[in-house]
Each structure stands twice: as C-alpha cells, then as structure tokens.
C-alpha cells in the first residue's frame, strides 16, 4: 500500500464515519464537523446549548462510530473529584485486604462531562490535569489515561443559578467551544419522525478504529501549512489582545489550537494542505471562549463571535 493510498484510505474512512453519524444526528453539520475536527486535532471541546438538542446523543454516536469507549459524568454540586478520577478502595482478597485503585469514569476514550458548570471548582480542577496532561493522579499515584482521550463538556447557557462558571484557565484548555443551535423546521420534523416511529435508536456502523484515529492524529500534526497562513492565524490571535472591544485576549495556546484545528479540517476535507478558509472557519470556535468582551461592546449587543468576525475582515 503506497503512502498516498494509506492517507486516502484514512480520509475515506473518516468521511464514512461522518456519514454514519449523520444518519443518526439530523442537521447540526457544522457542529458535527467541528466535533470531529476536535477529535482529529487531539483536543477537548466545550459544547454549549440549551437542553434537549442532542448533545449527548451526538457524542455517544461519535464514540460508537469510532470504536471509542464512551463514559458520561453528570456534574452536580456535590460531585467530588474522586468520583471522576477514581479512588482507592479496600478489597478483600485471598491474601487479605489490600488497597486497589478503582478507576473513575474519566478513564475512557470519550468522556462526556455533562453540565460541567454545575460541578464545584474543585471538581472542575480535577479535570484540568486529565485534559491537559492526559493523566490522573490519585493517592500519590499517576495513571495514564487511555488514548485517544477526549473530554467533551457541555454547559447550559440558561439557568445559571447554582452553577460555577468555568475559570479562564480551564476554558483555555478546551480547544473548541461549539454552539449547538436549534434545528430548523424540516430537520426538527425529521428528528420527530425518526425517533417516534420504528426503532428506538438508529443503528450506525463502526467506521474507524482507535489506532486509525491515532494515525490520523499523527498525520494531522504532520500536515504542512504555508508560512503566510500560519502567520495569519498568529496575527489573528494577537489582534484579540489589542482590540479595544476585547477586555482580555486569547493566549498563545489559542494560536496553536487554531493552526492544529485548521490542519484537522483540511484532513477531514481530504486535502493535504491548509487553506485560508480553514483558518476562517475555525477562528470563532477557537477564540470565542478565550476572549472577554469589553462591557461597552457587550452593552451594544455585540458578542464574541461578532468581534472575531470583525477581526477576520
């Protein structure tokens, strides 16, 4: 098998996986694409939407199609860090009692941290190490997390009472922030028909293996990018620190995320090079949760996406 065939085959497989997910998830093409990009770029995503828009179904379907182990954490104010990472328990054995580390739900390939802003800052912080270092430390021992590893956290933009807003240090660790919007009328009607008649769940086929996802992640890292496009991404991020309408700009981690996700998008589209369109398409998802809009711009009704769009012009 030639290298080109190898890469072509992987690109074909990721396209098939996307098609499989689309059979279960109606609409939301942009969100689905960005979710796959985040996986290929080996990052973590923050999904924000109102309840009932199929976030959990989407993430579960992605895990199912890609042969990744799925785990879900429902965050609540009384959730403890050990509930996520795991804890040592005393287990009776033939030789007596011994402490055994019981792995928590974070030990999975795809971890859905539902309503992450309802967990306490202490519990949220427990996810920091997992997200960034891909490892967990419990009872003085460090445990490697399975690869590939993704945390896909969701948060609800409404009903903010009793929630703990994620600190900037933690939101910065999410490579993308995806906004899941309501489907249009036709899509919603299709959803209703699909899930109220016939089978309870639309079956999907596994299209990718874990090793293939890791191979794709490696190829994405190897993808060349033109110097001017890389510079454009860096300059865009730097402009967020200088813009008058932005109180707090994005970090260099945003520059890296923008380039990396642009590469992943190029691979997802079957290309071997990054284009300016990739940068533009991913500027908002990469930057919207990393900047703080100035109160004057906020008073005028401008959002982070509006400011990013203005910076892109």
């Amino acid at each position, binding site marked *: 098998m030639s*290298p*080109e065939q190898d*890469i072509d*085959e992987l690109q074909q497989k990721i396209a098939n996986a996307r098609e499989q997910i689309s059979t279960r998830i109606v609409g939301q093409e942009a969100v689905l694409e960005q979710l796959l990009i985040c996986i290929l770029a080996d990052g973590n995503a923050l999904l924000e939407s109102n309840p009932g828009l199929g976030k959990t179904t989407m993430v579960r379907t992605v895990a199912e199609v890609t042969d990744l182990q799925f785990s879900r954490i429902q965050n609540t104010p009384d959730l403890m860090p050990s509930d996520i990472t795991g804890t040592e328990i005393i287990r009776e054995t033939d030789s007596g009692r011994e402490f055994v580390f019981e792995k928590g739900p974070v030990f999975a390939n795809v971890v859905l941290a539902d309503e992450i802003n309802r967990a306490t800052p202490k519990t949220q912080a427990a996810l920091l190490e997992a997200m960034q270092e891909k490892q967990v430390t419990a009872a003085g021992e460090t445990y490697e997390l399975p*690869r590939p590893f993704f945390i896909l956290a969701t948060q609800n933009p409404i009903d903010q009472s009793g929630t703990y807003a994620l600190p900037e240090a933690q939101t910065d660790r999410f490579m993308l922030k995806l906004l899941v919007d309501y489907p249009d009328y036709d899509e919603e009607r299709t959803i209703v028909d699909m899930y109220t008649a016939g089978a309870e769940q639309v079956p999907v086929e596994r299209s990718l293996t874990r090793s293939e996802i890791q*191979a794709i992640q490696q190829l994405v890292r190897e*993808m*060349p*990018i*033109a110097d001017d496009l890389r510079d454009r991404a860096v300059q865009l991020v730097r402009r967020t620190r200088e813009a008058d309408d932005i109180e707090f700009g994005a970090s260099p981690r945003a520059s890296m995320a923008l380039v990396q996700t642009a590469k992943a998008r190029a691979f997802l589209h079957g290309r071997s090079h990054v284009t300016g369109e990739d940068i533009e398409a991913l500027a908002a998802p990469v930057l919207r949760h990393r900047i703080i809009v100035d109160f004057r711009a906020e008073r005028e009704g401008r959002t982070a996406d509006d400011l990013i769009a203005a910076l892109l012009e």
Partner: protein
Amino acid sequence: MDKPDTNIGENGGEEPPESERAQARERMAAAIAEVRREGKKAAFVYAIVDAVLLFLLVNILLTVLSPAELPTQVSVPAAVTDPVEAAVGRSVPALSFPTGAVVGIAIGVCWLIGEYLYRVRQPLVEQFEAANANVTDALRTARDAVEDEAETRMAARLYEDVLDGLKQSSSVALVDSRRLLGTLVVVILLSLATVQVAVVDIGLLDRDPVETESPNDRPSQYEGLEDGDAILGDSEDVQAGDENLTAEIDSTGGDEEIDRSQSFPSSDTEGPGSGSGTVDSQQAGFAGQEDVEDADLIREYNLRIRDQDTDDEDTDP
C-alpha cells in the same frame, strides 16, 4: 465496561521510505524553481511590452511637441566616440540622434528594468497560484515545506498532489493575454503614428526654424593639423591628360628698329657720363586692383630694365 485501549496503535500502514520522500521533495523543489523561472519570463514579457509602449509614446510626444527647452538632436559625446575611435583605429564621424528617440529609449530602458524588478520581487509562486486555481494554497504550502525540508508522509503526499496539479496547469495563464494584446495594439498604432509624424513633420508648439546645421557646418575649435581627407574629401584617381594644345606666339625680329622714347625724371646733376638725351625714370607699377603676385620678381624686372637702359646709353655714340 470495556477496557479502553491504552496503547498507541499503529500508524495506519507502512510509511514510505525516507528516500522516496526525499526524492519527492527534490522533485517538488525542481518544480518550484521552474515555476519561478516561468514567473520571471512573464515579468520580462510584461516589462518589455510596456517599455516599448513607453518608448514610442515619449518619442512621438517629444517629436510632435518639440519643446524649445530640448535640442532636436543629441550628439554622441566624445566620451563614447573616443574609445570607439581608439578601438577601430580611425576617426569616427560625429553621430547624433533625435532627442525624442534618445529620451524615449532612456525612459523605456529604465521602465523595463524597474517593472521587471518590481514584478520579480512579487512572490512568483503566489502569482502562479493566482493564475492556476488547481494549485491555490497548495503550491506555496509545498514551497514552504520544501524550504523547511519537510519529508513527512503528509508532506510527501502534498508534493505528489502539487506535482499532479502542476501537470494540469500552465504558465501561459501568468500572462494576461487580453492586457498584452491591448498593449500590443497600442504599440502598433504608436509605431504607425511615429512613421506618419516623421514623414509629415508635425509640430504643435511654436519653435524656431529647425536647425539644419550639419556637423560639418559647425566651426571647429580644433586648431591643429587637419585630416586632408576630411577637408578635401576622399582622394580620387585622376586620369593623365592626353590632349595636346598648340600655342603660337608672334614676335618681332631682333634687328628691327625699335622706336621708343624713354623719359626719366630730370636730374640737376649733369656730370660726366651723363647722356645728352633725357632719360625719364619709369617706375614699374601695377594696377591698384591687381594683386601683387610676386613683388620680388617685379623688382628684379625693374632693376634689369634700368640696367639695360644704362647700357644702351653708354653704348650710344
């Protein structure tokens, strides 16, 4: 719960040998060099056409307007002709050219160099991309990857993709044929207008009569030896004269009596030897309007005539 795979899996197939990737990079580097060459050619085509257009435009404008501030002809300076003369070993006739042509050529050459350098300084790969949509973004990415000496699998794939794309692209698109044709049409029209102006000798601005002074008419400041050929023209072979002419001169015989009377200025001193006859001095003279051809010869003739007269008186009985 299924135990997740904690091992990093295979990289999805065999990696191509490094030598193949290196070869792909070398082919890509050669292709990019070719793209740059094509870009330079296109830049030269644009520059030469524009320069010719500018030359014709300036030439015809200066010819028609004939500004009084500028001479109609510009002579080649001695700094140019002297080395040429020294090189060929003979004098070179003084050369001069119409001012419009000289200024037009100067501006055209400057424009040629300036536009060529300007166009070449623009990224040639990006220009090629702009003209060939099938390699947009990919070609410059490949260029940067080659400069970074990238030989990864994705880089090798990119090189192959771009090389395939280049097979379907053309450097002809680098040249905007519509613009080029438009310029050429203007060049042709200006050429025809230049010929017409040269024939009709149009002058739009008032100007003193054209100085038709030729280089030979100008006074020379040179005071040394002149070249004979330059003054008299080239030497020619002259055939020897073969026509014989017969000249006849009538004269009287020597025994013929000569009746003549001579008068000399009166002399108060009549000493011995003085003749009884009156001798009038006769001074040789010449017409005022006539030029004295040879004063010494005339003087000698006078002296001899006097001596002859004296002898005649002495021999008279």
